[in-house]
């Protein structure tokens, strides 16, 4: 297979923006292929965190002094950046949360308590992350509602025919991911939403694996809720957003009580603040929210088309290389995928492969990837998963293939 002599210069430049990438692990250049778990952070995000603590640190919204003003302004600028990033109508529809897990728990709990009744149904798919399964199980149990699961096909696509049959007038909520963290499948979320709306159900889209890779337009999808984790899209850990249509968010009760989210408190009655503050109780993660803005800038600065094209090249190359190895089987071969390659190897446990690759400085993830029901679907215990970001290269995929070949040869 032809190996390009040098990296395209732009990728080299991009890599320079990520200090973490320039280290050696076990004596070799680090290959970071665990981006679906969390991506690395560019300098501008790291610098924003440092700047915030060195020049701005103040609690937001309640202060009138200069630092508080400055912090509040920066915090709200991220909200506007998030709105623009997903093309929401208004920044009131953007709620800062810890990440996708908290966003889904918020919706399941708040929307669920208010609107789910005995006999109602919630539909998820078989390729959901535990974060988009367990909150629904909890609320369904509490409200005596029923959880239904859309099956996935052999290649890893949501079975739309089966979905159509599951939908009924009892369906209240449909919750699916935009892209699967285990298989990479990009799901037809606009179509899924259209079908749900025809039955009067609301739709939540888990965008954890879309943030860094796909163009996101919540108005084009027309979903009712959309969730992102900053740390999976070059941003800091501990923050993310929940987008919700204003009409729905207004109708939903608060999720947590405390400061920030109230208008007036007496012991008899509390009136709640308006959106989005109603859902942001307590001092939020100010520093990380402010730095999150730089992650949006980073992605938009490169251009989502450019990112997608590069990652698609990587995916195609990795798929080719791995497919050419007879004992390797890729799990998840849908035509539309983000840069995720999950695979199993005949007779070798994923843990052993992961450990061997780590010994060669290659970071992959092994196991069930928080999608145990999906593993059951394919009757496997786990996979090895390589997931790509914009800074990865074909040379790194060659390193993966070499490492893999070495384990295979050894075990044979």
């Amino acid at each position, binding site marked *: 297979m032809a190996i390009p002599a040098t990296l395209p210069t732009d990728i080299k430049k991009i890599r320079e923006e990520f200090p973490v990438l320039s280290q050696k692990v076990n004596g070799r250049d680090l290959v970071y292929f665990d981006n679906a778990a969390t991506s690395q952070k560019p300098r501008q995000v790291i610098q924003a965190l440092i700047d915030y603590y060195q020049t701005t640190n103040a609690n937001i919204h309640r202060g009138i002094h200069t630092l508080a003003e400055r912090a509040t302004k920066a915090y709200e600028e991220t909200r506007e950046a998030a709105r623009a990033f997903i093309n929401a109508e208004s920044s009131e529809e953007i709620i800062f949360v810890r990440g996708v897990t908290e966003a889904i728990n918020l919706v399941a709990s708040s929307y669920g308590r208010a609107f789910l009744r005995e006999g109602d149904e919630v539909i998820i798919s078989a390729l959901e992350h535990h974060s988009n399964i367990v909150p629904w199980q909890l609320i369904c149990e509490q409200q005596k509602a029923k959880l239904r699961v859309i099956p996935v096909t052999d290649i890893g696509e949501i079975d739309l025919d089966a979905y159509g049959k599951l939908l009924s007038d009892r369906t209240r909520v449909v919750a699916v991911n935009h892209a699967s963290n285990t298989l990479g499948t990009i799901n037809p979320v606009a179509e899924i939403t259209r079908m749900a709306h025809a039955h009067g159900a609301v739709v939540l889209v888990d965008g954890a694996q879309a943030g860094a890779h796909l163009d996101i337009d919540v108005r084009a999808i027309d979903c009712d809720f959309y969730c992102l984790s900053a740390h999976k899209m070059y941003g800091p850990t501990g923050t993310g957003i929940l987008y919700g249509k204003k009409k729905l968010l207004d109708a939903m009760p608060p999720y947590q009580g405390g400061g920030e989210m109230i208008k007036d408190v007496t012991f008899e009655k509390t009136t709640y603040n308006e959106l989005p503050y109603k859902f942001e109780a307590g001092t939020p993660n100010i520093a990380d929210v402010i730095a999150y803005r730089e992650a949006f800038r980073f992605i938009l600065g490169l251009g989502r088309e450019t990112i997608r094209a590069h990652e698609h090249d990587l995916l195609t190359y990795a798929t080719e290389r791995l497919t050419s190895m007879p004992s390797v089987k890729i799990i998840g071969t849908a035509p539309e995928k983000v840069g995720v390659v999950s695979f199993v190897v005949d007779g*070798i*446990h994923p843990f052993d492969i992961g*450990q*061997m690759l*780590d*010994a060669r400085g290659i970071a992959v993830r092994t196991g069930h990837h928080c999608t145990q029901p999906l593993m059951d679907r394919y009757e496997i215990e786990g996979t090895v998963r390589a997931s790509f970001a914009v800074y990865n290269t074909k040379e790194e995929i060659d390193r993966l293939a070499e490492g893999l070949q070495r384990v295979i040869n*050894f*075990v044979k």
Partner: protein
Amino acid sequence: MNNETPRSIAAIQDEIIADFALLDDDAEMKVLYVMELGQKLPPMPDEDKTDENIVKGCQSRVWLTARLEGDRVYFTADSNTAITKGLVSLLIRIFNGQKPEAILASDLHFMNAIGMERFIGTQRTNGFSAMIRQMKMYALAFKTKMEIGS
């Protein structure tokens, strides 16, 4: 056979440390070596691979059984992952043929000396401690049995 005195636990540990010292502190060579040791482990009968024999606290599946021959303990083990199988084989090499008291009194230190945590990670290191615990539990059970029995 039960009368032959095995080398001491300390001596076998030293031997293991010396073996790993030949591997140039190279993570990959160490991992491959551990896997190779696992491949040499005598097979465990399938009927022993029951849920009851699974060592709790390991990420991988590890089955462990023990038997007493005379006053000596012998372990058999297997795992669904090659590296873990290699790790348990190290323990079997140290403990097989020892007296229960010796196993109970043993203080295993070779792990640090070979830099085990660095090449297998913390999760597996925790699992490794679980295996040692389970082996000592067997030793304790045999010791008690011998005391009551005699």
